[in-house]
């Protein structure tokens, strides 16, 4: 068991997501940064899809009541065992009675703690991920609280040697300004040509309204092409007949502030969506903190697929490195 001494700001159980229920209005949830999540599991020797803890901004304080193998990845949040610094992106042993704690996050916003065996919570609709909006999955459907006790599961695949670590090329750098690649499309025909350009030129600022549902960004007002609104859409020029929102899609209600939807997205609604963040960069947008800058870069489908293959290749290499260590 792991006892939660302090919960941190927002620590939730997450995995690779609850897929297949989007049409019922259920978003996938799951780790926002799927790359860091996958690496944490590899370093802990877990099977693909094992549940980990997603840590936001401020880490928890955890007392391990059994020996365990752990790995911490994602945003740079210096970890300590009994007050002694231990490395991230490395397989670490922790002993019964030890306390794991964290300094404030230095770079990025979200970190991942994998424990060999995975976090054991009930599987709800094929996933252990927490969807806090409706209180589904994870640990009692909510973020961790003081006094909670987590069980370790049995989804360990291999015993990874203590001290196994990754070279720099596999460790993402998170700065305070983020270039996020998007594919322009969906209802982008609703924006004026000028506003479409401004959308890509502007440096947007992350507002305090930035969480697992979505990131609201501040910049300048954008304009929609004037039209007689279609039947059923509603009267605002940013309204469309209610439609589905892809994960990573960006809408601009009333043209005022763009919202990029993440893993706990609302699955649909009546605002025109104008672009979608590519899957590789969904791993990065959730590492942006309030007041940091975001710039959107338009890419083609081919570029998006290439970036994705690159990420897949890296993960495959990491797997090989860990297996041969």
């Amino acid at each position, binding site marked *: 068991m792991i006892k939660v001494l302090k919960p941190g700001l927002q620590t939730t159980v997450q995995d690779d997501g609850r*897929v*297949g*229920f*989007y*049409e*019922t*209005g*259920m978003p996938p949830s799951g780790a926002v940064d799927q790359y860091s999540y996958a690496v944490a599991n590899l370093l802990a020797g877990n099977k693909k899809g094992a549940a980990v803890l997603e840590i936001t901004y401020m880490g928890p304080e955890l007392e391990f009541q059994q020996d365990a193998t752990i790995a911490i990845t994602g945003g740079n949040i210096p970890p300590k065992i009994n007050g002694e610094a231990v490395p991230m992106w490395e397989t670490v042993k922790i002993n019964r009675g030890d306390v794991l704690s964290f300094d404030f996050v230095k770079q990025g916003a979200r970190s991942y703690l994998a424990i060999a065996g995975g976090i054991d919570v009930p599987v709800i*609709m094929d996933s252990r991920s927490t969807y806090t*909006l*409706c*209180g*589904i999955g994870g640990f009692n*459907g909510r973020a961790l609280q003081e006094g909670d006790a987590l069980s370790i599961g049995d989804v360990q695949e291999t015993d990874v040697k203590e001290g196994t670590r990754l070279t720099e090329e596999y460790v993402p750098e998170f700065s305070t300004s983020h270039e996020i690649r*998007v*594919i322009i*499309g*969906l*209802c982008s*025909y609703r924006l004026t040509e000028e506003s479409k350009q401004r959308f890509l030129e502007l440096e947007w600022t992350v507002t305090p309204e930035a969480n697992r549902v979505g990131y609201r960004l501040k910049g300048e007002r954008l304009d929609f092409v004037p039209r007689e609104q*279609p*039947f*059923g*859409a*509603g*009267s*605002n020029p940013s*309204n*469309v*007949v*209610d*439609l*589905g929102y*892809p*994960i*990573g*899609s960006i809408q601009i*209600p009333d043209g005022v502030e763009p919202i990029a939807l993440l893993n706990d997205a*609302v*699955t*649909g*609604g*009546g605002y025109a*969506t104008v672009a*979608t*963040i*590519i*899957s590789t960069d*969904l791993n990065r947008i959730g590492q942006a903190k309030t007041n940091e800058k975001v710039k959107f870069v338009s890419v083609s*489908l081919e570029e*998006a*697929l290439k970036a*994705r293959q690159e990420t*897949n290749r890296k993960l495959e290499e990491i797997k090989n490195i860990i297996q041969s260590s």
Partner: protein
Amino acid sequence: MSDLKTRYSYGGDEFIFVELSEDMSLEVNFQAMAITKKLREKNMPGILDICPSNASYMVRFNPDQIHPDELIDELKKLESSVENLDDVVINSRLVDVPVLFEDPWTHEAVMQFRDRHQDPESTDIEYAARINGYESKEDFIKAITGSPFLVSMIGFVPGLPFCFQVVPREEQIEVPKYVRPRTFTPERCFGFGGGFSVIYPVQGAGGYQMFGIAATPVFDKEQKLPDFQDSIVFPRQGDIFRYRDVTREEYDAVRAEVEAGTFEYRKKDFTFRPDDVLKDPRAFSDMVLGRLYND
């Protein structure tokens, strides 16, 4: 349906978004239903989510397994195969949904957010009745409850049904959404925005006009009620809901049944063809109401 200008678009590298029409109509909703049903039946590898919506649909896929352009080609083929909706059959349920209009809880929320509304001097229902040309709120409620609604999309949050009324186009109600979205909407609030009525499954943010409250849940994560044994959400696209105006007394009685875990919707399985609806929506509506309450 040659007048439809379909837009196929990439939603990043994991989604295809297909907008069949910018306008809402029963016909386009049936088309989206038909295409997504056929796609589901094909059981193609790499398809993760198939999400029909009002006048569009969306597919989530794994691009490591299927190339998006290959998927678009397939979707275009499916679209042309359903151009003629003749061989499309919709498996539906007719459902009685009791609603208490102008209830105290919704009214409190209505008054709380007047500063975000087009017309702060009226209530949502007074405003909606007036701009749709009704003499009184009572006539407006009669129009809402007089004909059933097709569940045309599920989404926003788990279990929220978007419902489009089965009446001729000229009788369809349309209202704007709030000028600025609210931070609070009561659970089970019966709302209206654009051409759609909704029931909010859980309390939360919202932008639709608020008219009342449904006595019955559309979302039950504990799956206590008999109607939720297979799924935590009740509505399915293609269902036909009749919103029935109830008294406070009946509302309280239904709530007691829900709380006791014994409530079951009055409902009938029902199969229909799009053409049954499109050729005469009025006659179809009368027919299904007869089936729901009499047969």
